[in-house]
Structure formats: C-alpha cells, structure tokens
C-alpha cells in the first residue's frame, strides 16, 4: 500500500473535524436561546449562532467528504493525485472559512439559509471545487472500468459544482422578480445539494465496506449496486420538490417529486431485507470502529428514511412542514447518516490500522453508545415539538404563536440537554482522532 502519510485527504479530514467542534458548540448555544430568550442576546443571539452552527456543520460534511474521496482515491488510483492542486484547494478553503466566520461575527450577512455569509466568500469555495474536479478527473481518467463508488464520487463532485452555482442565481434580479420561482430554485438547490454530498458519502461507505470485507472488486461492480446508484441519482435530480409542496408552483414539479420520492421505498425495503445478513457481518466486525460507525449509519438510514418517506406524502407533509419535524429530518440525516459515515472514514484514514479497534478504550466505547442514545432523544424531542406545532397550525381556534411556543418549552429543554450530551461525546471522538492524526509521523 502507498505511504499513508502523504495522503492529501488527511488535511481535509482534520480541518473538517475542527469545524465539527465549532459547529457542535454553536448548536448547543443555539438551543439555549430557545429556552433562555435573553441568553447572549446582545452579543451573539440566534441570528449569529444559527448560521455559525449550520455553516460549520455543513462545512464539516463538505470538507469531510472531500477528505474521504481523496483518501479513497489515494489508496485506489494508480495515477497519483496532484498534491499541488490539493494544497491550493485547501488554502482556498481556509481563506473562505476565515471570511465566512469574520462575516458572521461582524453580522455581514447577505446570503441565504445555510449560506448566510457575504456571497463574496463563495468565490474561493467555487474555485477550489473546480480544482477538486480537475484533480479527480486527472486521477481516474485512465483507470480502466470504474467501480460504482468512483461513479458516485464523480457524480457528487460534478453535481455539487452545478448546484453551488445555481445556489447563487438569485444575485441576478431576474431570478428574484418572480417570488415563487425564486423560492422554487432556492429549495431545488437545498434539496439536491444534500443529494450530491450523499453521493460522495455513500460512495465512501461503499468503498469502506469493500475494504472491510476484503472482497474488493465484487460489490463495487454488481448490477444491484449500479441500480441503486441510478435510483439515488434520479432522486437527487427530481425529488427535491417535496420540500415545497405548499408553495404555489406549477403542479408538475410537485407531482414529479411525489412520484420520484416514493421510489425510495425500494431502499427502505432492501434495508429490512438485508437485516439478517448485516447481523452476521456485525458479529465478526463488531469491535472495529470503522465498521461500528457504518453499522450505526444503517440504523439511522432506516429511521430517517422511514420518516422522510412519510413526509414526502403531501397530506402528511402539510402537518410536518414548517415545524421542527423538518429540523429533526435535517439533523437526523446529517448527524445520523452523514456524520456517522465520516467518523467511519476518519477512523479508517487518520489512524494506523492496529489502533482502529474498540477494545482497549472504554471511554470511546461508552461514548459511541451515548452518542446513539442522545441522538435518539434529540430526534424525538424535535419530532414531538414539531408534531405539536403541526396540530396547532391546523387548529381552527389556535392560540397565539407565543403561547404555542411557550407550551413546547419542556421539549426544547430536552433538546438542549440531549444536545449537550451528544456534543460532549462527539468531542471525545474528535479529540481522540485529532490527537492520533497529529501523532502519526
């Protein structure tokens, strides 16, 4: 195997872990503002904390995915990756990150949900992403027949680029003139960008599984794997309309989304069908961290997909839309699925092989299980507060908004507590991984 030390993906993974640290802190502080209205109101306030939280964790996922793809490619590709390009790419990211944080702390907003920073800082991100695409294509250009995960990585990178540009179309007044179209494009972007990142991450999960099972080149080329890849891609392209069922758009947009979203039942049924097989696999790999996190991913895919499928049915969506059920869905997937895959990848790529097992470290073992448990509590607290608001929304003699929010207080307290525990346990992993990454010579 090639020298792991020079793997260009490592620096991206390390940067990503640091961003997760910041994002978790901002998330817990955000949840406190729900319960304590005057908390940090004058200094930070939710208007800075929410963007800080959401952007940091989005960047954790984006940079983590970049790092994972690079690491996988590094082990896979015979053609070397250009270290120079990857270095410039990272420097551009660092410039963007400094700009974004500066922008938030000085309240220099101007962007939209998830990207609230001054749009100027999107430029270095854009250029760095183009470099990523170039580097990737140069590395895989001549490597024979691609396994499914190479296709998934490439798809993720190309679509992220397209969607990222689409994300800034609003800069042109033409796109803002028609409010409904503007909103449609905005949520087309937000829906499908997650799909693009998922292509990179599921590709990584596929690759890791392939390595763990040591039967390389089998799963990666199967018809079923490619079938699932195309189904995922179709969903990336066309299912985002389920975010905007209530928006008065052209009805074909909504029907396309409704129809395509329902094809995801296939994934759902497949998970149940594979359950037994997974259990057998689990026994032999249970003590191995990359595997553990992938196992957790499976569980969270099941829970989140079940909920997402229900939310994609418009009559149910009308109850959950505009409430914290949406947040449960957003956080449930980004933590339960994306972050778990990234931790699996970080364990695989940042730590020497003999240190990837669980046994010697009780603290890590407990933290793993507390993460899962507190995430479940966090998820339920968001869902319950969301459903209660949903019932309020449809109640003909509803009380005032303020009173309704007051009645949800208990659930917001549960959110704050479970979130804090989740944060602390994630910190244990982040610190462990960073320590190891820096100590490897």
């Amino acid at each position, binding site marked *: 195997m090639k020298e792991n030390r020079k793997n260009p993906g490592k620096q991206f993974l390390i940067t990503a872990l640091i961003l997760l640290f910041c994002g978790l802190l901002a998330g817990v502080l955000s949840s406190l*503002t729900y319960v304590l*209205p005057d908390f940090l*109101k004058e200094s930070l*306030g*939710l*208007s800075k904390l*929410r*963007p800080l939280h959401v952007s940091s964790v989005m960047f954790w996922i984006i940079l983590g995915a970049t790092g994972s793809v690079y690491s996988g490619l590094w082990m896979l590709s015979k053609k070397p990756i250009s270290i120079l390009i990857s270095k410039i790419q990272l420097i551009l990211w660092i410039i963007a990150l400094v700009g974004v944080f500066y922008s938030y702390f000085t309240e220099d*907003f*101007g*962007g*939209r*949900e998830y990207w*609230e920073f001054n749009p100027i800082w999107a430029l270095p991100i854009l250029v760095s992403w183009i470099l990523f695409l170039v580097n990737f294509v140069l590395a895989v250009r001549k490597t024979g027949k*691609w396994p499914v995960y190479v*296709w998934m990585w490439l*798809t993720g990178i190309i679509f992220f680029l397209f969607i990222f540009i689409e994300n800034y*179309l*609003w800069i042109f007044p033409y*796109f*803002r*003139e*028609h*409010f*409904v*179209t503007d*909103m*449609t*494009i905005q949520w087309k972007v937000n829906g499908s960008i997650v799909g693009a990142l998922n292509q990179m991450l599921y590709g990584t999960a596929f690759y890791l599984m392939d390595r763990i099972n040591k039967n390389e080149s089998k799963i990666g080329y199967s018809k079923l794997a*490619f079938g699932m890849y*195309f189904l995922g*891609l*179709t969903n990336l*392209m*066309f299912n985002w309309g389920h*975010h*905007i*069922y*209530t*928006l*008065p758009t052209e*009805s074909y*947009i909504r029907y*396309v989304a*409704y129809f395509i979203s329902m094809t995801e039942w296939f994934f759902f049924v497949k998970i149940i069908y594979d359950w037994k097989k997974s259990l057998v696999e689990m026994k032999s790999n249970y003590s191995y961290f990359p595997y553990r996190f992938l196992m957790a991913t499976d569980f969270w895919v099941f829970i989140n997909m079940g909920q997402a499928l229900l939310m994609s*049915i*418009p*009559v149910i969506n*009308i*109850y959950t*839309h*505009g*409430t*914290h059920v*949406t947040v449960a869905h957003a956080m449930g997937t980004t933590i339960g699925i994306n972050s778990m895959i990234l931790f699996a990848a970080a364990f695989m790529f940042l730590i020497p092989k003999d240190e990837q097992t669980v046994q010697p470290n009780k603290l890590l073992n407990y933290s793993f299980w507390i993460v899962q448990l507190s995430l479940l509590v966090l998820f339920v607290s968001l869902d319950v507060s969301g459903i209660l608001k949903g019932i309020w*929304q*449809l109640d*003909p003699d509803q009380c005032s*908004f*303020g009173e309704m929010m007051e009645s949800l207080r208990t659930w917001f307290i549960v959110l704050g507590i479970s979130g804090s525990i989740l944060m602390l346990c994630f910190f244990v992993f982040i610190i462990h991984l960073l320590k190891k990454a820096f100590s490897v010579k």
Partner: protein
Amino acid sequence: MKIKVRHIFSLLCLAFLMFSLSIYVYPLKKLKAQEFNKVSAVEGRLVWQKYNCQCCHQLYGLGGYLGPDLTNEYSKFQGNEDILKALFKGGMKQMPAFNLSKTEENFLIEFLKQTDASGNANPRNYSIHKNGMIEQNERK
C-alpha cells in the same frame, strides 16, 4: 449496442438540465401586472437577507423556526405599514430591535407585499386530493 453506465448517466443529466431550464424560464412566461412595486420587492429580498430574518422566520414554512411564518404578515395587519415598521424597530423576545434605514424599511415592506400577493401559506388553506396531493385554495 450494449448500454453502458455512461449512457444512462448522460441521459439522466440531460433530463435534469431540461427540467432545470423549464424552471428558470418560468418568470419569462408568467410576469403579469402585479400589485407591488417589482423593483423595490426585488431589493427587499436583499434586505431580508442582509438582516438574516430567515434565521428565525419562515416563508411558506421554510426558514428557521424560532419565530412565526411571515408570508402573509402584510395582510395580517391589513397592510398597515406603520404597525409593521414598529414591529421591525421594536424587537420582541429573542428578536433584536432592527435599526433599518427608511429605504430599507420600504423595500422590506414591498417584499412582504410580494410574498403576500403570491398566495396564502396558512396550512388550513389547502385542499387534499384523493391521490394524496395537496393544493392551495384560490384566494377569495
């Protein structure tokens, strides 16, 4: 001819591009005379972003969830702009008091007029089809 992965990939991409284009050109087909000042409304959206209202408020249920949905805030107060301006300035609970300039204030109100004119976002204002789809009721 054998169907290859890249053929299916290209075909899907083409479909996606056409779908996207059909959405981009929609305003060209649809711009009719509207009840708000278009230029100001377009600027008002930027004021909404500049002060990050989206972080606590929703439009058609999308945004942050600490505060209420503001899609139809304009008609909630029967278009009384003084009340709206007072609300922006006053702040309440977690919402800070915003010090908007006169122009910004007017742009923002024009934007809220635009969102209000686009439809009624109240979830009680939808009917349900047999196939499970929902549809916004016509405005009276």
